């Protein structure tokens, strides 16, 4: 037979020839030193090209659970660019607090059942000091370098762990942050995250083209997160003591700052960074303090109402969803897929 062409050599080396073709090729190679020499050259070429492509590979990160990808999709399927601002207000209700919201929406649950889920939860985005904001860095980098240590993640107290799901995604946050001490956090965090510092930071983050945290005081409604950003930070141990257990978190993501409501110490907020730089604040109220917290019901309901009916947001910018007993509220523009992922993780 005539000499083996390059395409056949590559197909041979790639293991893509049919048995008949392979036999014929090997027959020729056995008899033809020139083609054997070319075979070695092509093998080296394939390895070299493969190595080059390996230089241009993304970092390997674990896939999020497949079920978390489910959810309503935009018709075009095109994602809204992540660079758009997001003010995320998640409210997960439990007990008295949840029941108010659920009754309001006709999805009342038994308190026992609701209590299985995480406590009151509010999410907001971080207000990072402009001084720490560098335009070419990702939000995560900025946050990782900010003096906000992350205590070890605590498992979300879930009633139904999914057996079939892959491991949770690797933490998007530099683990080094987790090892830093708690001591300097309080004042540093307060300094970095005071509302006054926030608007400029939000703008800078937008310019950086990342998922953006809009400063709490840019929020148009009187939501929990606006207050929570100014709450004093607390240590993990203190939070555990207040709640009687570890605070609920999105599993697989490093836990950021913990804060306590000065007006109601039984209320703990956990700040977490999720993919794309969105920072989520989980707000949780101690079950033990539920009685004491009852006095705050009207205020909480009021907040709930005002955020539900906040003016000035288009339907695109304001979303409220229910996942069983979780009330998730998004103010600002968040890509639908990010929301689905977030919901999946919380589930």
């Amino acid at each position, binding site marked *: 037979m005539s000499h083996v062409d*390059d*395409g056949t*050599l590559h*197909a041979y080396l790639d293991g893509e020839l049919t048995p008949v073709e392979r036999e014929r090729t090997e027959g020729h190679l056995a008899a033809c030193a020139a083609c054997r020499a070319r075979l070695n050259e092509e093998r080296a070429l394939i390895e070299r090209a493969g190595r080059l492509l390996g230089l*241009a590979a993304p970092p390997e990160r674990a896939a999020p659970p497949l079920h978390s990808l489910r959810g309503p999709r935009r018709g075009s399927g095109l994602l809204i660019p992540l660079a758009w601002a997001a003010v995320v207000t998640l409210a997960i209700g439990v007990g008295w607090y949840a029941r108010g919201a659920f009754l309001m929406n006709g999805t009342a649950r038994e308190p026992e059942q609701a209590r299985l889920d995480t406590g009151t939860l509010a999410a907001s985005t971080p207000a990072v000091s402009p001084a720490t904001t560098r335009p070419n860095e990702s939000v995560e980098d900025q946050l990782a370098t900010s003096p906000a240590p992350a205590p070890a993640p605590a498992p979300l107290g879930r009633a139904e762990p999914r057996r079939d799901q892959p491991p949770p995604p690797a933490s998007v946050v530099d683990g080094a942050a987790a090892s830093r001490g708690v001591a300097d956090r309080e004042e540093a965090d307060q300094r970095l995250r005071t509302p006054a510092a926030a608007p400029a930071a939000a703008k800078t983050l937008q310019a950086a083209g990342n998922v953006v945290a809009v400063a709490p005081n840019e929020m148009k409604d009187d939501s929990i997160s606006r207050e929570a950003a100014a709450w004093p930070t607390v240590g993990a141990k203190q939070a555990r003591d207040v709640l009687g257990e570890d605070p609920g978190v999105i599993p697989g993501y490093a836990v950021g700052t913990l804060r306590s409501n000065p007006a109601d110490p039984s209320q703990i907020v956990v700040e977490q960074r999720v993919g*794309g730089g969105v920072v989520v604040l989980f707000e949780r109220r101690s079950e033990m303090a539920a009685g004491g917290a009852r006095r705050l019901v009207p205020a909480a309901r009021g907040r709930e109402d005002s955020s539900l009916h906040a003016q000035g947001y288009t339907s695109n910018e304001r979303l409220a969803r229910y996942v069983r007993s979780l009330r998730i509220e998004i103010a600002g523009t968040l890509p639908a897929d990010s929301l689905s992922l977030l919901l999946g993780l919380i589930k």
Partner: protein
Amino acid sequence: MPEDLAEVYRTTYSALVRFLYRKVWDAERAEDLAQEAFARALVHKPDNPRGWLFVVAANMARDEARRQARERRHLTLLKNEPEPAAPAPDETLSAELERDRVRKALDDLTPRDREVLLLWDAGQSYDEIASQTGLAKGAVGTTLARARRRLVEAFEKGSEAEHVAR
């Protein structure tokens, strides 16, 4: 969901991210698009999920590239000045530089050569590549041989040019 989609997700997700990354050159964006492709597969339940996913991913990456090109044009109009010269490379930047060289080398390939090469590197078989690109199966090996050679040549040429420039 179809059972096999879960399996495809397990085995193909990172390959799809890799495939997309070499088109959008942004790891997070590539992950977003890959997840979006799987989310669509959950809805559409295609018969051949793997092939379907790569076709959808390629389309999404193409739309993304168009959008980025539009934005770049817009930015160029706003800025109307050349980018400052890249700073001298140091050790910490070398990985990034190499990646950029590979990226430039890939840009030098014809769209078809590049597509076939990326599909192969993402674990697609000749049969799958053929059905996705419309090439005859017999032409896949020839295309891959040419694409690999051009990639290596373009990479080395780019490296030499940088050495001369320095």
